[in-house]
């Protein structure tokens, strides 16, 4: 265990990093360069529904 001195936290971060990376890949979450989406304003919501249900 003495060999791990100073590396325990790194090992923990590595395990957390790999887990978080796997989870992100599985749910298709791109951390960077993802297209920014915004919730619609009330006006846009109304506009979309009106058009669609026409």
């Amino acid at each position, binding site marked *: 265990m003495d*060999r*791990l*001195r*100073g*590396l325990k936290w*790194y*090992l923990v*971060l*590595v395990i957390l*990093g*790999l887990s978080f*990376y*796997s989870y*992100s*890949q*599985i*749910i*298709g*979450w*791109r*951390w*960077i*360069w*993802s*297209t*920014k*989406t*915004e*919730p*619609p304003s009330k006006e*846009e*919501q109304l506009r*979309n*529904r009106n*058009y*669609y249900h026409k």
Partner: protein
Amino acid sequence: MGNEVVIQHSCPKCKHVTTPKGKALTLSLTCEKCGVYYCVHTNANDQFLTKFIPALAIRSRGKIKGVLYEVMGFAVKREKKYEYQWREYFLFNPNVGIAFLSEYDGNWNFLKPYSKHPLFVSYTATPTIEKGKFQLYAKYHAEVLYASGEFFTDIIGSNESSTHYEHICPPYILNFEESNSQLGAYLGEYISPALVATGFNLDKKNLPPKKGLGYTQPHSFSVDESLLLTISVVTLLAAFFLQWILNETAINKKVFESHFVQADLNGQKMFTTSSFQLEGDQKNVVIKVKAPLSNDWFFAEYSLINDATDQEYIFTNEFEYYNGTEEGEAWSEGSNMGDAFLSSIPKGKYHINIYPEFSTSNHEFTISIFRDTPFYSNFFVLCFLLCLFPAAFYGYRYYREQKRWEDSEYSTYE
């Protein structure tokens, strides 16, 4: 008690009689009265021009590494070529033997005689002993500027004719002294000023102020380098393997494709796609848009809408493509294709409302929608983050080693 022989020496200059603590072992000493240095057998003597005050008083006692030593002598030495000075304290314990405390710029080393020095056998620039592989740090000739107390050798005579080799493997140091008449070897270790102060029951403020990194001083932060390397490599391999597995298992399915022409708008401002099914739980959606552009642009606002819940994701995308010839050479810029990557879109039936902005020359576009497309950016970010700590560690170590070796003629650092 009655049989004990009292050894006394008389100063060749002032005739003051001194009783040495080292008894018969003392071969040289300084007169307590006039300060003259003399050898007990030859009476060769020296008067020092400058007086130095030792940080550890002669005759004071202190515990180093659990052993109680008495300060027998103090010497100030100077390297002949570069003229830097350091101070040496000669320590003695009758049961354990002799030792030295050496101080330079407030950095201390504790040294003891070492009979297994590889240089006793043959010269090597990188002697290896049980403590590790040592590298030559300094080779020099020294002179004694000042001495007080008593010594078990003629420190002036032996220093004047000796060549000193200092090899280091921090926190350890190997010293080798070679002259026509004698060889001496010492193995030492860096000792913090705090430990020296504690050992001699002194206030740390009374010791010389520490300047810079001691040449044998260990790094304040160190890790098992081979283990760090192993963890880093294994983690990168694991990330690579995970990326490969996730790529292989990605659906990567085209769920919709259609071509739109401006004329079909019929005065409306938007197109609506037919519904398409997004499978899986939460996965990415990639929308690729193509338009036959030539020196033109295409912009559209998109609204991805869940048919069942009316959950909407609004985004925009713009691309442009310009080309031509200049001075007989063809050039082009941009692309006639754009894409949008939507992260973590839940499964369900969706459609897209598209609000295009056509230019005067382009009047059509094609849209393709993909579900669960493999992507690599997270992998590269992960690799970058995983390499940060090892890179910072090795960078820090390189910087500190460079500092450590900057006073050495034998530095391999630029």
